[in-house]
């Protein structure tokens, strides 16, 4: 972060400093700080219970933090909440539209709350709304998951917000609908909208300009997705071969194994030795596997992705069984 005074034209869309929130004995957010630049897609990547929803509720003025300050569009989320509310769009994680109203009635309602009409804002939401418009008479509760999600996005956009907060918009959504949804976000970003979005799907990090990895109410790292992967501190190998389950066990017995995880059709092996040539480690592990009776395996160094980094930064999950 630069220490220079901010240029007013590049004032942060979001600026959070030391925000904490507790519910009883649980620290939902444990003193987090970050900034989001205007026009960015900024992603919060983390599992259930990481604190993502609490953070989004604070940023949309629905929950007051115990400590720290948060500014959105330059406005304080506690003091300036009324000024802020008309300028942010929020799509909560749980489906929060009126199930007994039709698609069109829901949109009319949300438009009228903000003193506008569906007609006046049609051009803005048209790229998304057109996909569900053939079903505008249908009750919102009777829509499929993918259509509900598109309607919720339309309702969050209908008052022309300057920044959009999307809390896990793709959770429980199939891989194809997820891709389409991210394509839509890309189009909105191209129109100049700032988007803050959370997801438990690590591979969606690649769709963001920058991401924060979040777990247990703390931010583990913030950067462009590639930059986070590039910081992976230890040699990482991809191992391919038959008898996966046994292969995992064998790799874990390697004297220098730090971690071994299945990764799609590969296994990812992290070696505990720092500052060694990954190619040499690959040769060593290959020889080790041959000696252990796994002759037909392929071992090669691989670049770390977000999920590798996330697991390394997380360390052991709570209550990990041996």
């Amino acid at each position: 972060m630069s220490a220079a005074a901010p240029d007013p034209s590049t004032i942060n869309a979001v600026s959070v400093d030391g925000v904490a929130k507790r519910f009883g004995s649980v620290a939902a957010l444990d003193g987090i700080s970050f900034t989001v630049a205007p026009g960015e897609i900024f992603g919060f990547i983390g599992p259930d219970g990481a604190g993502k929803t609490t953070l989004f509720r604070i940023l949309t003025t629905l929950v007051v933090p115990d400590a720290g300050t948060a500014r959105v569009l330059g406005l304080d989320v506690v003091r300036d909440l009324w000024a802020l509310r008309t300028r942010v769009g929020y799509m909560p994680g749980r489906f929060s539209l009126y199930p007994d109203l039709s698609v069109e009635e829901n949109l009319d309602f949300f438009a009228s709350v903000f003193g506008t009409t569906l007609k006046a804002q049609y051009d803005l939401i048209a790229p998304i709304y057109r996909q569900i418009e053939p079903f505008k008479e249908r009750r919102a509760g009777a829509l499929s998951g993918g259509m509900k999600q598109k309607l919720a996005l339309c309702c969050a956009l209908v008052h022309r917000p300057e920044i959009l907060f999307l809390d896990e918009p793709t959770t429980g959504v199939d891989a194809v609908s997820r891709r389409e949804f991210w394509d839509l976000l890309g189009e909105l970003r191209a129109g100049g909208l700032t988007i803050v979005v959370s997801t438990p799907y690590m591979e969606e990090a690649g769709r963001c300009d920058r991401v924060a990895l979040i777990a247990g109410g703390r931010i583990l790292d913030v950067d462009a997705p590639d930059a986070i992967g590039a910081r992976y501190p230890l040699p990482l190998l991809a191992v391919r071969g038959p008898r996966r389950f046994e292969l995992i066990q064998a790799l874990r017995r390697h004297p220098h194994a730090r971690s071994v995880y299945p990764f799609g059709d590969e296994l990812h092996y992290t070696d505990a030795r720092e500052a060694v040539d990954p190619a040499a480690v690959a040769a060593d592990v290959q020889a080790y596997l041959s000696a252990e009776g796994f002759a037909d395996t392929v071992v090669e160094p691989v670049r770390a992705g977000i999920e590798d980094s996330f697991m390394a930064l997380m360390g052991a999950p709570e209550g990990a069984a041996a």
Partner: protein
Amino acid sequence: MSADAAVEAHALTRRFGAFTAVDAISFSVAQGEVFGFLGANGAGKTTAIRMLTGLLAPTSGEARVAGRDVYTQAEEVKRRIGYMSQRFSLYEDLTVRENITLYGGIYGLTDREIDERADRLLQTLGFTHAAGDLVRSLPLGWRQKLAFSVAMIHQPEIVFLDEPTGGVDPITRRQFWEMIYAAAAGGTTVFVTTHYMDEAEYCDRVSIMVAGRIAALGTPDELKRRYDAASMDEVFVRLARADEGGAQEAAT
């Protein structure tokens, strides 16, 4: 139909009014297999699973699970299967041990069996210290591991897992899959749905449902070869995109 398949569906069909949610699907799952049951939202997966677990009657067709007809021998089937639903599997207001005791009782285990299996289960999960905690207070990853173990408490021949890893952290997600492998190695057939395409690669075979039908079925390697795809994600996108609209829009 072969006698020794764990799950066998023949022209299994379910209509809701004019809408055909599951359209004459036929497939079989071998004993001890890890079978991935994939499909887009609204493709008919949940309806199919509800029929296979005896929770919903088919409009036509036949399903056999653990060698028994799901409709004429429903009670015998229920004793031989475990089911972990995505939405609900444990009572949040009960403690960890109370949940285990409750499910053990429902499945007709003796008090001694329940005690022994509860102790072993808690030890295996490393949860012994949390036996008296309310399930509500547990992190999601713990809850899902516990729910799986509880679904296995009566040592079923087949366990049905409906999106067991949704929202779970990446390390716990992988530990969950090791539990699945261990169950399969012990002879239990695992029938699992997921939206994580990397997990599709962990299955022995996968089927992909599109618009109520099984559009593809095979090992991950076979499917990747057949669709000339680098990953299961690509296979999935190709198949589901081929049916843009129809299935999804009709679903309720």
